[in-house]
């Protein structure tokens, strides 16, 4: 019964944000009708666009899961961007060096590897928090930036593909890539990885002792400690899972679409992931529709800019509205007339 109310609230937020979009488009566009049509219907007009939308949602599922995994225990991982970027670089390096001989094996190894890399990086911030009381908000963010610069220096330096017009690594071996669903645009097998990860997390959170402890720490740390939960251990696990899932986001994208690491390819995955996580209210299964929703916003805005006269930045504004609404718990109570 409780969950029903939360679901309605989330639905309400989505509706409000879409209303916001409609209002903005109507006011600003010179031809609101076609812009609106492009925005709402564009992504569904053909299989190609639809598939693209789903493809775009894949990394968001990972980063959304990542942020959720931390947030559920009260751990705020703001280093997602860096974890995504750096982990995918490590995976790319390994793929380039060793993937030639065993491409099919490495299709499995690389995502797992990036999970470990991302998770380990995140655990550094976790350790700083536990041992020294340094807020993970700052430390994860700082480490993330450092890693992005580090990765960029490698991409532009020793790993640079001389033949490429843009800053990128050489292409991975041809077989070291996810199979595509040809009809669906760029949609690739990575989506199955995402679904699996989500299912695993859902089971863990809902039905395992670990999940129970993670949620407990997030809701009342003092009570968890009193109940015998090893709070520090839980925070470290959360940090690890958080960075781990984020780490997979970029690698999956590379294996599925880009087949090499392009400088700046994943910018925004981390931040959007936070939006996805917030809307999903820490329930992994909701991450699937949530990431598709945000991918829809992204694609819809692009359509509206191609076929209408809008700009893709519209999606960012809508996202911001979602953020505002999601975190302002009291807003709905306010509108219902009850004061806090």
């Amino acid at each position, binding site marked *: 019964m409780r969950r029903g109310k939360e679901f309605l609230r989330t639905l309400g937020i989505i509706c409000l944000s879409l209303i916001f979009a409609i209002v903005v488009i109507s006011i*600003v566009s010179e031809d609101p009708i076609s812009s609106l049509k492009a925005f709402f219907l564009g992504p569904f007009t053909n299989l190609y666009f639809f598939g693209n939308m789903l493809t775009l949602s894949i990394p968001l599922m990972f980063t959304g899961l990542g942020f959720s995994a931390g947030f559920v225990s009260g751990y705020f991982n703001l280093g997602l961007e860096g974890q995504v970027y750096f982990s995918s670089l490590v995976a790319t390096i390994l793929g380039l060096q060793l993937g030639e001989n065993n491409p099919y094996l490495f299709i499995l190894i690389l995502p797992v590897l990036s999970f470990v890399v991302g998770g380990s990086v995140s655990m550094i911030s976790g350790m700083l928090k536990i041992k020294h009381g340094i807020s993970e908000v700052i430390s994860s963010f*700082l480490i993330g930036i450092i890693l992005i610069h580090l990765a960029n220096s490698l991409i532009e330096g020793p790993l640079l593909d001389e033949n490429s017009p843009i800053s990128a690594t050489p292409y991975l071996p041809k077989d070291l890539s996810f199979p595509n669903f040809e009809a669906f645009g760029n949609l690739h097998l990575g989506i199955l990885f995402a679904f699996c990860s989500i299912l695993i997390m859902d089971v863990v959170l809902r039905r395992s002792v670990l999940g129970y402890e993670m949620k407990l720490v997030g809701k009342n740390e003092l009570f968890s400690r009193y109940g015998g939960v090893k709070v520090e251990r839980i925070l470290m696990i959360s940090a690890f899972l958080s960075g781990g899932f984020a780490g997979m986001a970029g690698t999956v994208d590379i294996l599925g679409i880009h087949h090499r690491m392009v400088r700046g390819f994943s910018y925004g995955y981390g931040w959007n992931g936070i939006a996805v996580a917030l809307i999903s209210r820490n329930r992994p299964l909701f991450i699937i529709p949530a990431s598709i929703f945000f991918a829809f916003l992204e694609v819809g805005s692009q359509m509206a800019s191609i076929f209408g006269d809008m700009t893709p930045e519209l999606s960012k504004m809508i996202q911001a509205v979602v*953020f505002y609404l999601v*975190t302002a718990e*009291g807003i709905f109570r306010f509108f219902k007339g009850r004061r806090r």
Partner: protein
Amino acid sequence: MGQILHMTFSMTTPILFAGIGGLFTGISGYLNIGLEGLMLLSAFFSAHIANVTGNILLGTFAGTLVSILFSLIMVLLIDRFGANLYIVGLATNLMADGLTVFTMQVLFNSKGTIMFSEIPKMRLIDPFPRGSILEIFNGYTIFDYLAILITLIVYFLLSKTRFGYNLRAIGKNREAMIMLGINVNKYIYVSFMMSGLFCGLAGASLSIPLRSFVENMTGGRGWIALVTVVVSNGNPLVLLLFSILFGFFTALSNFIQTMWKSSPLIFSIPYILTILILVAHSVGSRGSMKPNSKGDG
């Protein structure tokens, strides 16, 4: 070399302004993640209005007003609606990013660099007499001198007025201040609006001298300012020092980029430094600028 020095101080100004803005909320116990967004909003709107009116002052005023508006939204959501400090900050950044480019597109039909040619060129001032030692500090814009001046004023404000004492006390022991009858809420609102005010100046000082605006013009300076806030532990002079340090690195990287291709690793040095300082500081004493518990960090 002199060129780098000169660029350093120009680069420092926006970071310094934003840092001062972050200092106010930081001292009262709230880590304002939205500095980047507040600065970006002002960068656009102050340049735009300055262009439309041909008046730098009006432009700065307008841009600052927008920043203050958004900082007010932040504190309202946190205070009245139980919003999470960090998420509201992220929302502000996101909104700033989207809104500025969106408006750019709507007004100018362009997503590249907008040249605001109607903005008067900023004059470089020589406040110090020639021949004196201070001569090397000549030749900057009024924004630059204002930033330093304001830093000193804020230092004075925080350490030598009742307002400053109360604000600091709120961050250290909020309960006690409530017991003493201080209107803590008022102070919090004021500190957020100060964030807006100074981030507004930060944005204006970024775009107006360049008489242009480009997408994501702030380029992470707001985050750098946040870092200086955390590291300074409430001391405006230390904040100044770190702002200059970061300004130096920004100038250095710009300089190097025009000369020869270099490793982006240079960018990361100040961040590495910051982490080391944070760790050293926390190992020494217990806790530096701790985010307010409302932030759930």
